[in-house]
């Protein structure tokens, strides 16, 4: 089943929705504005009735896998269940109806929520203060690096390099480069953890920070984190924590205690705000005392129960987006934290670790395990053992889709060939984990008996594997003026 585009379904005859008339005496735009200001041709938006629109989007919705219907073991993405009460909370008119430029006195509840969320997140990660402004994880990373840069700069210390492990998320080096840093890669050792010898050789007075996630992207805790922190700090550099994997140890340990100076969190991973098919998320950043003066403005301050926005912070890096962050997502995350409490968050992380180790055990005979367990909240397997049958990680991913599971993250981290990165999260039942394990077993067995069936997967979805190479060629042809098909948008056929 496929669904035509709204543009293809558009009927010239569908009139506009009923909307109010102006009911005031005033001139038409064309009477006041010069012709140079007036649009010459109406935009080509579709013309559809409401029932047609609702049916269109219902059909599109039915073509998606989502956490509401499927197990989503997407490593590094923490696809846990999103409690529906979060949505109810964010939709309260007392939040959704607030204009960002209302006076502080009229938004005390919103500011109180932000202040409490800041306190709660600070408690979870062990930092002094948190900015809630960044809109996403990568935005948070970049914000943290800008603060670290400002910190060094304030000491007359022009550091130009940022160290990033080879197993890091792609956003790490991209954020560092966007901040104007030169990125230097640090190698992982045989055990999947950062090589201290390599780190030692790359540390120098020009290094501003080491960006690290712990547990790392292989799902392994960096046992020598305290040594790493000492080495980094001894050279005057700072330690930055990529919070993508925070779900592994809430209530068990804290990045702040490990020596991290700046810590970003993904509210859309660890704190159950929904992913929305790719956002909106929220990427708050927590900092230790040294970095507090550099936090983006405004911060939320509380004096004798009265809340204010503080714009007068002379050392601040400035604002990194409009207003005060993705406030609607902050409400959702706060609702989750209130409902879970300290006890619930701790249990969530323990259960996440338990689920990952249990699932790892279920599939360890079927796939290669490049590193020894136990793992934390996720593990990375490799499909290398199926190479002799011509089966790749991608084939396994697609075969899982046919079995009503979303696929794990594949081909990441880059340090493991044919990587299959599985993060089950704490919100899945044992029955689901068993079913997933059984599906992997069945697929691996099929690799021997009928590999072609795996190459042909998926068969049960609206489309089969899409030819992305041909798509890239078509885009090139368009960009080079050899084709009229833009590929990246719909375009009416020339009449």
């Amino acid at each position, binding site marked *: 089943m496929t669904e035509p585009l709204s543009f293809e379904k558009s009927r010239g005859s569908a009139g506009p929705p009923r909307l109010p008339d102006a009911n005031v005496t005033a001139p038409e735009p064309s009477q006041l504005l010069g012709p140079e200001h007036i*649009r010459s041709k109406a935009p080509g938006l*579709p013309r559809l009735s409401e029932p047609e629109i609702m049916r269109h989007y219902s059909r599109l919705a039915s073509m998606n896998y989502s956490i509401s219907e499927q197990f989503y073991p997407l490593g590094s993405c923490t696809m846990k269940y999103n409690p529906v009460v979060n949505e109810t909370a964010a939709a309260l008119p007392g939040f959704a109806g607030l204009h960002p430029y209302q006076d502080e006195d009229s938004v005390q509840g*919103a500011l109180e929520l932000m202040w409490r969320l800041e306190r709660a997140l600070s408690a979870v990660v062990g930092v002094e203060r948190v900015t809630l402004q960044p809109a996403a994880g990568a935005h948070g990373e970049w914000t943290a690096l800008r603060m670290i840069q400002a910190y060094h700069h304030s000491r007359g210390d022009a550091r130009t390099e940022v160290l990033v492990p080879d197993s890091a998320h792609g956003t790490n080096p991209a954020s560092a480069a966007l901040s104007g840093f030169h990125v230097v890669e640090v190698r992982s050792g045989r055990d999947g953890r950062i090589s201290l010898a390599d780190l030692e050789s790359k540390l120098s007075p020009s290094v501003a920070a080491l960006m690290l996630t712990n547990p790392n992207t292989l799902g392994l805790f960096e046992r020598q984190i305290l040594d790493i922190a000492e080495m980094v700090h001894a050279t005057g550099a700072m330690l930055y924590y990529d919070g993508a994997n925070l779900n592994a140890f809430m209530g068990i340990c804290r990045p702040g205690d490990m020596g991290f100076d700046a810590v970003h969190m993904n509210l859309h991973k660890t704190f159950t705000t929904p992913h929305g098919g790719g956002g909106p998320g929220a990427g708050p950043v927590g900092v230790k005392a040294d970095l507090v003066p550099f936090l983006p403005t405004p911060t939320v301050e509380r004096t004798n129960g009265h809340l204010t926005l503080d714009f007068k912070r002379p050392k601040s890096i400035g604002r990194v987006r409009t207003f005060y962050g993705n406030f609607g997502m902050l409400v959702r995350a706060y609702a989750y934290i209130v409902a879970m409490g300290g006890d619930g968050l701790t249990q969530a992380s323990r259960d996440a670790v338990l689920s990952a180790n249990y699932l790892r055990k279920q599939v360890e005979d079927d796939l290669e395990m490049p590193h020894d367990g136990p793992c934390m909240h996720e593990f990375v397997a490799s499909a290398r053992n199926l190479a002799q049958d011509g089966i790749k990680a991608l084939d396994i991913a697609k075969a899982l889709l046919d079995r009503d599971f979303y696929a794990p993250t594949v081909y990441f981290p880059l340090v493991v060939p044919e990587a299959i990165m599985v993060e089950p999260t704490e919100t899945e039942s044992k029955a689901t984990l068993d079913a997933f394990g059984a599906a992997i077993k069945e697929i691996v067995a099929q690799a021997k008996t009928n590999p072609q069936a795996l190459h042909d997967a998926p068969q049960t979805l609206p489309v089969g594997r899409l030819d992305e190479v041909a798509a890239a060629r078509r885009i090139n042809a368009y960009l080079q003026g050899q084709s009229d098909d833009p590929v990246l948008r719909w375009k009416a056929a020339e009449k």
Partner: protein
Amino acid sequence: MLAAIGVQSMDELLLDIPSSLRIKALELPAGLSEFETMAEIASLAARNRVFPDRLTFRGGGVYRRFIPAAVAAVTSKPEFYTAYTPYQPEASQGTLQAIFEFQTLIAELTALDVANASLYDGATAVAEAAMMAHVHTGRNEVVVPGYLHPEYMEVLRVFSEGRGIKVRRGTEPGPKTAAVIFQQPDFLGLLVDARSLTESAHAAGALAIACVDPISLAILAPPGEYGADIAVGEGQQLGLSPSYGGPHVGFISCRKELVRRLPGRLVGTAYDKQGRRGFTLALAAREQHIRREKATSNICTNHSLCALAASVYMTYMGPDGLRQVAEVSFKRAHALSERLAALPGWEPAFPDRQFLNEFPMRVPKGPAVVRKLARKGILGPLDVHRWFRELKGVLTFTCTEVNDPRALDELVAALES
């Protein structure tokens, strides 16, 4: 489960964590039932004051508009809001097609070739566009004439500093200028001469970046018609509630020649073996997960669900509905500005400049006016003196289709009282 794993206790799974790092418990209250949770959250919501839509005359980048019920009906479908970024295209066709439609809608609205899947907000869209121009031209300065939204300006500066790009206020681009960035209508609501700004940018070998109000484009010449290279903007007005400033959605579109410099996700068509058309992430070689430090941007998670809301809104309105909304807002704002100008001591702050539905008035005792209106239940105009020293006593009023004629009467009566 522990037995299946082959351990005696949970703690055996956590042995890699040095014992000195283990904490006893989080310093947070214990969990609550759903009922208690909502009671606590609702008590915070109750400490905020919400002004009725019809009595909201404040804009400054976030506006009250009629939001069709269809928008929430679609965005609250869990198949949309609980899906991840569409990495597995076969299982994500709904999201991918919706993004492809969003890209087309934005490209149509701005009359440019290609739009991306979304950005965080209008401010970061401006900053990302500046980065595109910097890389494309190899030049290190952007010029900003007139009244760009002050928060966009600040974000642009913070982004630019990291990359060593200078942000200069002014009207004259020079040989070092990568782009001229202007807002149409500007932060005060006034129209700028987009055509001559674009021409001056091009004459200096720089790109022209237009920051536009999406609803205004139902009336105003779109960036593609006057030759701008990149269009950016804030999409909050397209079906998103104010929500104390977010989440909203940034958009960006550009000429064909700049497509490879676009930040973030792009969705394109592709075909399977049976020749069926589908949608998939395209030109990923620009992105951080492939290119790492050489990527065009670090953006990963964007604002997909907000883009979906905007798509539903634009599809619901169609070209005629969007025009109706823009025209009603235009007429009400002009009717209001005439009445306000008749108040003793009040005058248009820039009488020679045209506007659409937001306009600056110079008034005696601006801050007192705003406070007085609040006492009467009206979210009055925005005092822009806070950002611009030269605009003492200048307040901007906003009118949209939600401010019915009686609401205008109430506003004027409150001011006269």
